[in-house]
């Protein structure tokens, strides 16, 4: 390019620039359309089919009016709760390790494998939990679903914990050590509480992700038309119920599937917004 300060940009180059610039506007517009399109239909079809009964009643046969997904909503809470019990401690522990020994060979390997784990198809997690829990036990159970979803939570929680522990100012750590705190007390009493809001964000992001998972549940919790809170029994879950209603031939079940989707999206969005709020308060504190 033999440009001097006074060179005029040729019309062709100007045109290409303007064209590509407007194409990126088009791309941004087109990329946001599907979301608005999905949300529009969810609201339109979901709101009309949602009712109080949806939250309080058990599913009913297709020709019987009324009925709801109360047991599926509770089932999702049970399975996701179980998943957190499995995934959160492991994820946080591994995240602390990665942050505190970031250069260690094991840390490099774990960081890489956590990312690889994160990209594994959820259906593979389902096969894993099925073979490991369902087959030996001889029956489907909420526990196996919790294991599949819990394993899926680990990489997300690990990586966010790592990031959040890293941004804790080292002056805090040094101050604690200088005052005679041991390493582990410094970690648990000073560093972790400071990073807590950020870690919570990671946990919530992971929760939001697994709450909507369906594929692993096909192999593990199976679904259950009745009330069940037992970890040892098949249990219903909202995404699973949406799936079986969506592929059914009945109109009133389709309506229920839309209502269920609306509730599921609402759950996921509330968790995601909480995560955003937690991040904000976390950064506020870290930058104090």
């Amino acid at each position, binding site marked *: 390019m033999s440009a001097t300060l006074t060179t005029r*940009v040729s019309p062709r180059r*100007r045109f*290409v*620039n303007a064209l590509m*610039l407007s194409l*990126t506007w088009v*791309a*941004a517009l087109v*990329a*946001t359309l599907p*979301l608005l*399109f*999905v949300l529009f*239909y*969810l609201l339109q*079809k979901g709101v009309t089919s949602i009712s109080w009964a949806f939250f309080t009643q058990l599913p009913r046969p297709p020709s019987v009016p009324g009925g709801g997904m109360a047991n599926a909503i509770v089932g999702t809470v049970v399975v996701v709760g179980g998943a957190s019990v499995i995934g959160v*401690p492991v994820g946080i*522990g*591994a995240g*602390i*390790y990665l942050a*505190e*020994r970031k*250069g260690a060979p*094991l*840390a490099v390997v*774990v960081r890489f494998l956590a*990312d*690889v*784990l*994160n990209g*594994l*198809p959820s*259906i*593979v*997690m389902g*096969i*894993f939990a099925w*073979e*490991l829990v369902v087959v030996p036990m001889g029956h489907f159970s909420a526990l196996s679903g919790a294991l599949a979803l819990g394993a899926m939570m680990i990489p997300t929680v690990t990586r966010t914990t790592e*990031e959040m522990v*890293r*941004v804790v*100012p080292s002056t805090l*750590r040094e101050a604690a050590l200088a005052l005679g705190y*041991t*390493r*582990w007390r410094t*970690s648990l009493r000073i560093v972790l509480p400071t990073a807590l809001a950020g870690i919570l964000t*990671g946990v919530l992001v992971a929760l*939001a992700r697994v709450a*909507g*998972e*369906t*594929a692993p549940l096909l192999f593990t919790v199976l679904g259950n038309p009745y009330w069940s809170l037992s970890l040892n029994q098949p249990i219903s879950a909202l*995404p699973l119920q*949406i*799936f079986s209603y969506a*592929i059914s031939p009945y109109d009133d079940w389709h309506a229920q599937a839309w209502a269920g989707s609306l509730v599921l999206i609402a759950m*996921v969005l509330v968790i995601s917004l909480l995560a955003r709020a937690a991040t904000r308060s976390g950064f506020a504190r870290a930058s104090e």
Partner: protein
Amino acid sequence: MVDEVRAGASGETERTPTESPRGRVGIHGGGVGDRVYSSVITLFALAVPVLLLVIFAVVTMAAWPALRTFGWGFITSSDWDPVNNRFGAAPALYGTLVSSLLALILATPLALGVAIFLTEFAPAWLRRPVAFLVDLLAAIPSVVYGLWGIFVLVPILRSYVMPFLRDTLHLGSTPFFSGPAYGPSMLAAGVILAIMILPYISAVSREVLMAVPRSQREAALALGATRWEMLWGAAIPFARSGIAGGVILGLGRALGETMAVTMVIGNRQEIAASLFAPGYTMASLIANQFTEATGDLNLSALMAVGFVLFIVTLVVNAAARWLVWQTSREVGV
């Protein structure tokens, strides 16, 4: 949702300037408490590789009977005959590749466009909302996409898009857009996958584009480049392998996506050139047939499909991470 992807893109190079130089010294010394604490977190860290190994072992074991019986024929045969115990996953493998490639072709230009828009051209007030909306695409559960696909997307494809492609554009004479428009089809799967992987590709691309040093951009502009020439000649080459990593990451998502695809692809065990024809993917085959599987070999054949899927996504993801990591290291240095 997309945060974890971003962590992967930028995590490696972060160096806090205030970092204690004796950070690693302390953790090795100290009393019993320190040693216990140190081993506990090491154990947790070890859980990640162990988990991956166990998944690999368990899936391989479940798949072994079918893999041993059919050998390589398992991925080259199109026979799926539970009655005579003959199983071949070729149509599912083909469907997985075609639907994922279609999704990449549709999503990559869009995602790149959005990433460039957000890093370069968007007015400040538009950046946050557009980024938020695109990120939100990743937060919608697969089964909800599936429901939307069945009742909104597929009817639109059947009544408008397919006739338009086939008749108005006269693409019906090519094998890819011929035949009756049923609705549930490879095309539907590709479109829905494209929507689902768009946020992942765009998040990583945005991240690596933002990591391109200012000096690189300013140098190009100072030489008289237009903004687009600056992007095309300076910024994008710099971010190239990172963008490739993002695309491959999206590919990994598309390959393993199950529910939405199962609900719109039509689930037919057949290799058809036409995108209008129904098909199968590996994930949808497993999900669709698992509850109906009769006999041990049938189940094992489904697990073997899972095994192939596992290997494919493992390789794809490792490649993607490596590429993203490469870029962030180059940019960091």
